[in-house]
C-alpha cells in the first residue's frame, strides 16, 4: 500500500497537452502527410528517443497517438495517414494553425544494444515512419552499425512515403541497400518482390549478427516474423512495434493492454521473444 502524500511527486496533469503550432506540412501521398510542430515560443515540444510515441491532435476534435517520425533541434514531425475522424481533421490543418501535443510515451528502439550489428529494416505502407526513426539514428552514427538493409513494400506506387529519401538519399549511403516493392500496378523502376522467405534469405545476411526491425500490417508481420525465424535470427534480435488503440498514453486508461503489458508504457517496441511470451490476444 502507498502512504499517500509521501513518496509520489507530480508536476502538472500529464493528460493536459501543450499548445504548439504547425510550421511545415509536407504531403507524402494522397492520404499521408507529415506535420512539423514547434512550441509557441519556437522551442522543442519534448525530448524524444527514436521509437517513442507522442500524442498529436487538434483541440476541438481530439488527439491520437503517433510515432514521432523525425525530430529536429526545435521541431518534431508526425507522419499521419487519413483514416478516421481525427486524422481527417488533421489533414485539413494549415501552416500556422495551433495544435495540441504531449509526450514522449513508451519505450524506444534499443539503439545501444544494437551497436555494431547489421540492421535489417522491414516496413509495410504506413509502417515506415516508426522504422525510419531508427534508420535515421543508424545513419546519423553510421560507424556504430554494420550493413543496413531496408525492405519496404506498399500497396501501390503512390503509397510509398518519403519518396526522395527512398530513391535518392538512402541508396547512396555507405553499405546501405534499399529494396522497394509494390503489390499492384508497379510500372518502371521498382520491382514486385513478395516477402516470402526465399527473398529475405538471398539478401545474404550474417544471420547471427543481424537485428531485424519489423513494422507493418498484421499480414506482413505474420509472414515476415515466420520467415525471419526460419532464417535463424534469434527471437531477441527481432524487434517490432505493436499497434493498439491508445487513449491516455500514460498507462492509466487500461485500453492498450496486450495481456499484462501496456503498449503505451511497456511498448511499443517489443522483441519477438516478448511477443511470443504474450498471450495470443
Amino acid at each position, binding site marked *: 500500500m502507498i502512504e499517500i502524500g509521501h513518496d509520489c511527486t507530480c508536476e502538472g496533469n500529464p493528460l493536459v497537452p501543450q499548445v504548439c503550432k504547425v510550421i511545415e506540412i509536407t504531403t507524402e501521398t494522397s492520404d499521408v502527410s507529415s506535420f512539423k510542430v514547434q512550441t509557441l515560443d519556437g522551442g522543442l515540444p519534448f525530448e524524444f528517443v527514436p521509437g517513442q510515441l507522442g500524442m498529436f491532435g487538434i483541440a476541438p476534435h481530439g488527439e491520437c497517438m503517433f510515432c514521432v517520425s523525425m525530430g529536429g533541434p526545435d521541431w518534431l514531425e508526425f507522419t499521419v495517414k487519413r483514416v478516421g475522424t481525427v486524422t481527417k481533421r488533421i489533414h*485539413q*490543418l*494549415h501552416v500556422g*494553425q495551433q495544435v495540441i501535443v504531449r509526450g514522449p510515451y513508451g519505450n524506444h528502439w534499443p539503439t545501444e544494444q544494437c551497436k555494431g550489428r547489421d540492421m535489417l529494416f522491414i516496413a509495410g505502407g504506413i509502417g515506415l515512419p516508426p522504422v525510419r526513426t531508427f534508420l535515421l539514428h543508424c545513419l546519423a552514427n553510421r560507424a556504430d552499425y554494420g550493413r543496413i538493409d531496408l525492405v519496404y513494400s506498399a500497396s501501390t506506387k503512390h503509397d510509398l512515403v518519403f519518396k526522395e529519401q527512398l530513391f535518392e538519399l538512402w541508396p547512396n549511403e555507405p553499405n546501405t541497400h534499399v529494396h522497394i516493392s509494390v503489390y499492384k500496378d508497379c510500372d518502371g523502376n521498382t520491382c514486385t518482390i513478395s516477402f516470402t522467405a526465399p527473398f529475405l534469405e538471398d539478401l545474404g545476411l550474417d544471420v547471427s549478427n543481424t537485428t531485424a526491425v519489423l513494422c507493418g500490417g*498484421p499480414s506482413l508481420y505474420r509472414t515476415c516474423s515466420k520467415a525471419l525465424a526460419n532464417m535463424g535470427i534469434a527471437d531477441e534480435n527481432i524487434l517490432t512495434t505493436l499497434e493498439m488503440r491508445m487513449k491516455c498514453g500514460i498507462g492509466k486508461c487500461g485500453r492498450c493492454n496486450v495481456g499484462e503489458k501496456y503498449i503505451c508504457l511497456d511498448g511499443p517496441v517489443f522483441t519477438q521473444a516478448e511477443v511470443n511470451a504474450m498471450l495470443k490476444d
Partner: protein
Amino acid sequence: MSRIGVFLCHCGTNIAATVDMTRLAEATKELPGVVYVEENKYMCSEPGQQAVKQSIIDRGIDRIVIASCSPRMHELTFRKMLTDTSVNPYMLEIANIREQCSWVHKDKEAGTKKAIDLVRMAVAKVDRNAPLFTSEIPITKRALVIGGGIAGIQAALDIADAGFPVTLVEKEPSIGGKMVMLDKTFPTMDCSACICAPKMNDVGAHPNIEIMSLSEVEEVTGYVGNFTVTIRQKAKYIDYDLCTGCGLCEQKCPSKVTSEYERGLAKRKAVYKPFAQAVPSKPIIDAKNCRKFTEDRCGVCEKLCTVNAIRFDDEDKLVTLEYGAVIIATGYELIDWTSLYGEYGAGAYPDVIDGLTFERIINASGPTEGHIVRPSDGKEPKTVVMIKCVGSRDPHKGKAYCSRACCMYGAKHAHQFLDKIADGECYVFYMDVRAMGKGYDEFYMNTLQDGATYIRGRVAKIYPEGDKYICIGEDTISSKIVTVSADLVVLDTAMEPQESADAIGRLFGVSRDLDGWLTEAHPKLRPVETNTAGVYLAGTAQGPKDIPDCVAQASAAAAKVIGMFCLKALESNPMISVVDEINCRGCGDCVDVCPYKAIAMETVERRENSVWVTRDIAVINSGLCQGCGACTASCKSSALDLLGFTNEQILQEVDALCL
C-alpha cells in the same frame, strides 16, 4: 480548418434597408473557418459573381456562403457560377436574409440579429459540406400530354412537329375540349370550329401523335426522363381499326340519351359521336344506356355494321409506356352555380342558362342550328339579361378569383345576340369590365355601340312572372334599383379546375392551391413548370385564362419538353441518400419508407476483422433516389444519410443557431 468565403448581398436596399450590413460583416468575420467576408450591392449580378470567382483564386477559398435572397431563387445561378471555378458547386450554402429576414422584420435590431444567426447557421453547415458530383440520366424521348383541349392539342402538335412521339390522353370520347363547343371566338369573331377543327385533324393525322380517347392515367412511377405511366383505355365496345366512322349504327340506335356535349339541350344515341367534327371521328357505345348491356336485347348496331366493328365483349385495357416528360392540360369546368345561387332560381328556371349552354344555342352546328331560342318554349327571346361574375370574385358564395375570360365572352354573346335579333335588347350586369388583351377593349367598345346596355351592379334576384323573368338589380352608378323583365338570362359563371386534376396532381406529385388549380413552380419565373422535374402545365389546368393565353402556354410547355429532349442526357440530382455499409444491419425498414422504391436489400460478402461474413445490406439505386430523406429518418442506426443534408450538417446548424 476549412477556408470559408462569405459574401453578403445588399440586394440594392431590399436587404440593406432593414439589416445592418456592417455589423453583419463584423460578426461574420469572427465565425470559425471564415477567412474572407465581402459585401456587394447585387451578388447575383455579373460583377457580383465575378467578385466571388476572383476571391476564390486570390484567397484559396474552398467553401462559399452567400447571404442573399432565397436559395429557391438563385441557388442554381450560384451553382452554375461555381462550375467554372476550382470550388465544387455543392460546397455552397445560401443564407436567406431577404425573403425570410429583411422583408419580414421591420425592426432593424432584431433583423440584424436574425441575419447574423442565419449566416452562422450557413457557415456551420458549409463547413461540413462535401464535394458532390452529378451523374447522367438517360431520357426517353417520348412525351405524354394529358387533356385534349386546345392547350393539349397545341402542345402535342408542337412536340410532334419537332419529331418526337406524343401520346395525347383524353377522358372524353373525342379531343377538342371546351373550345370546340364554342361558336365564335373573341376578339376576331372567327368561328371556333374553323380554327380548332383543322388543328384537331392535324392531331388525328399526325404520324407522331397517338390519341388515346376515353382514357385516363392510372398509375405513375419513375422520375424526370424515365416516367413509367400506366393508362387505362376504357372500353369503347367498337374496334377502331375496322370502323370507318360511317355513322350507320348511330342512326339506327333506338335508345336516346341527353347529350352532355349539348349540355342537355339535345339528345344523343347510346352509340354516338359527341359532335360531327369529333377526332377520332368514330363513335363509342355508352354502356350505361345501351340496351344490349342494360336489358341484354337489341344489338341493332352489331347487325347493321357493315364491317362488324362492334365488340360488346370489349374491356378496359391497361397500357404501360415510358415517357420522358409530361404536360398536364386537364382544362376547366364551369362552376355548378345551381347549388350556390338560390336567388337565381338554383337551376329551376329553364331559361336561366350558363355561358356554354348559350354557346351551344348560338352555335350553327348546335341543336338549334344557330337560332337563338329559349330552351323552355323555343321562342325567340327579345330581351336578354347577362350577369357577369357569377361565382367569380365572390369569396362567400363561390371563388375569390376572377375567371378572366367571362367579360370578353359576355361581350361577345351580347354582340352576337344584337346581331342575330335585330330589335333585341341586351342588358349586361357587370362589376368591372376586364378587357386587357390585344384588341379586347376595342371589341368591348363595339359591343357598347351595338346597343348593349351595361349596368354596373349585380342582380339581386330573378323570379319568373308569366313567361318572363324579372331581374332586380341596383345600378351602383345612378344608385337606383333596376328591374328588367327578360326572356332569357345568361350567367357568366366562374371557371373551376376539372375534378380529375386532383388525382392527376397526386399521381405526379404536383400540389394544388387552395382553389384546386395545379401550382406552377414560380408564378413569374417558371409559369409552365411544376416542382416535379419533367412535369409541365398548359392551359386552364394552371388557372383561368382565355384561349390566346392557353395556346401561348401550351407552346411554352412544348418548348420546355423539346428543350429537354434535345439534351443528350440529364444531370442527376447528386443530393441523394448513401448507405454506410458498416452500420447497416439489414433490417429493411427503409425499403418500406422509400416513395421511389429506390432501396433494395442485397446479400453481400464482407471481410470484417479478417473474417469473411455474408449479410444483408441496403443498396440505393442512385438513379431513382430523389433525395427526400424519408429513409434517413427511419434508419435507427443512421446508416443512411442524405448528401447535402447529412445528419452532421443539420446538427451543426442547430448547434450554431443556439450559440
